[in-house]
Structures are given as structure tokens and as C-alpha cells.
């Protein structure tokens, strides 16, 4: 059971990768990349979890409470921001590709080679 959250992260990563490889639509492919990346959120949060730890926000600091690791939570925030940035840029490129090749099927984008 102690491995279960990590396996969930691995599963999400592999499902995203499968979608990325088999996708026939650029927008779908970009969303698969988002799924692939969200596995890192699960992994990071799982690594930072302490049994019995509270959320990393204090309402009372006198009792010296133990919180789950706030560092990985901050990293997840960074992760999400980067994902948003990458996704928006990729979607823009997908629009461009559609204008250039008249298709959003990655298989049809032959002219990208060479």
C-alpha cells in the first residue's frame, strides 16, 4: 500500500504517453501531454506527504504542528504554471500547423520532415 500513490503517478504518465503516441489530432495530443505532466503532481505530493501531517498553513503556531512538505507543493505550483505556458504555446503552434497544412492530424504533417 505504501507504493500505491507512486504507482498511480506511473500509470498516469504511461496513459499520457500512450495517448501522445497514438493520437490523431494535435489538440488531443497536447491534452495527452497535459495528462502526462499531471503525473508529476501526484508523484511530488506523494513524496512530500507525512503521516499525520497537517496542510502547510498555520492557524495556531504555538503547538509546533508538523505539516506535509510545503516545498513540493510549491514545486507543483511551478509545474502547473509551466504546463499552462507550454500548453498555450503548443495550441498556438497547432493553429499555425492547421493553417499551413490544412490538417490537425500529426500523420498528415509530412512537410515537417526536412
Amino acid at each position, binding site marked *: *500500500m*505504501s*507504493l*500505491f*500513490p*507512486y*504507482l498511480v*503517478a*506511473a500509470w498516469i*504518465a*504511461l496513459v499520457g*504517453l*500512450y495517448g501522445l*503516441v*497514438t493520437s490523431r489530432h494535435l489538440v488531443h495530443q497536447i491534452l495527452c501531454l497535459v495528462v502526462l505532466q499531471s503525473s508529476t503532481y501526484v508523484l511530488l505530493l*506523494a*513524496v*512530500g*506527504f*507525512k*503521516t499525520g*501531517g497537517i*496542510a*502547510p*498553513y*498555520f*492557524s495556531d*503556531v504555538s503547538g*509546533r*504542528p*508538523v*505539516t*506535509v*512538505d*510545503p*516545498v*513540493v*507543493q*510549491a514545486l507543483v*505550483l*511551478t509545474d*502547473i*504554471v*509551466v504546463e*499552462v*505556458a*507550454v500548453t*498555450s*504555446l503548443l*495550441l*498556438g*503552434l497547432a*493553429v*499555425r500547423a492547421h*493553417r499551413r497544412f490544412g490538417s490537425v492530424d500529426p*500523420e498528415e504533417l509530412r512537410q515537417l520532415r526536412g
Partner: protein
Amino acid sequence: MRPERRLLFFVAAAAGFAAFLVWGLTGLPAFGHYRGPYGYLIDRLTVHYTHATGLVSAVNFFFRGFDTVGEEFILFVAATGLATVMRGLREEENEVSGGEAVSAGVSVPRTSDGVRTLALLLTGPTLLIGWWLTTHAQTDPSGGFQGGAVMATAVVLIYLAGEYLKLRRADPIVVTDSVEAVGAAGFAIVGLFGLVAGGTYLAEVLPLGKHIGAVNAGGTIPLISLCVGVEVMAAFLLVVSEFLGQTLVLKGALDS
């Protein structure tokens, strides 16, 4: 490569990858048995150094503030990059169809009254939540990144309630460009004040506030959060405006 053969290749590769991944994951500390000094250090040091009680924001805007400057500029650069990609496209379109004709000839379906009413009703509360999130980074699970995204949603709701085409005449892109630049520069400038007044970039130069966990506690954290919120809101709006503008261009191209 044919799709079937590629799938076969992928399954073989993924099986190997999965095996290595799971093998690697078994080497991590068991779930719930956190090891490593940083989580415990942040627990103990945050309140002393910042008077803030929101540890995640304290990590983002204080302990690793310099990293967050970079993170903010990733978003800035991505929004600028998207604008570059999309505006080039729009100019091409304008050359083909003669500018004004594109947006004039478009028959955009009317937004239903139900959608407009709901969007109007939600605009105020959404903006308030976004503002609250942006200004409470030091005490609550919030911060400029989340708040900025929610505030951008409020503006998108205004687009939804009105006619985006009409609002566009006021050229919000020029405004959002400037606001985005101000937000991004604000964070960097707060850091420079630290450099001048405190000797290191992003050094804490503001009073920490008397009461731990009060809204005015946290020194530079609320200020940085506000800058980030403004930047994120403008970046999101820029992205949304670019895609909305693109829809109009495409519709125009199809109609003509």
C-alpha cells in the same frame, strides 16, 4: 512508420520504461514516511523569518523567490511567444482579405440571454475571489498565480456577457500587454529594492507586521503576490484574446 507497427514498438518500449519506473519508485521512502530536511526546516523557520502562516507562498515568494522570478518570466515569455506566432498569422490573413473585411463579414451567432445573465452574475464574485486569493498569499492557501487565473476568468466572463468583437475595438491587447509588463517588472523591481536596501536580491526590506498571520504580515510576500497576480491575469487574458481573435479570423476566412 505505420500506426500498427508504431503501437507495437510503443508497447514494447513502454513495458520496459514502466518496469524501470516502478523499480525506481520502490526505492523512494514509503508513502507517508517523509525524509529530508526541508519540509521540517520550513515548518520551523517560516514564521520566524516572515511572520507569514502560509508556508507554500512563503516558499514560493520568500525562500525560493529568485526561482519564482524565473517561473513568472516563463509565463511572460510563453504569452509573448504565442502573441508572436498568432499575430504573424493574423497579418497574413489581413493581407489576403484586406483587413477590415475579415471581422466585418463574420456572422457570429448571438450569445443567449441565459448565458449573458449568468456570466454577468458571476463576474463580480469571481473578481472578488481572485482579488482575495491574490492578496492573501501570506496567510491562506492562495497566491498571485491562482488569484491571477481567477481574475482573468472574471474578465473572460465579461467577454462572454458582451460582444467580444465590440470590446476588441478598444484594443484590450495593447492594455493587457502593458499590464503584463508592469506585473512582470514589478516582481523584478521588488527584488532590486532588496538588492539596494538589503544587500541581496529579493532581501526582505519591508516590515514583517506585528501580528503573525495577519493580512499585513509577511513583508514583501503580499507585494510580490500582487505583482504576480497582475502578471498572470494579463498573460492569461493575452492568451485568451489571441485565441478568440484567431477564431474570428478563421471564421472570416471561411466566409469569404
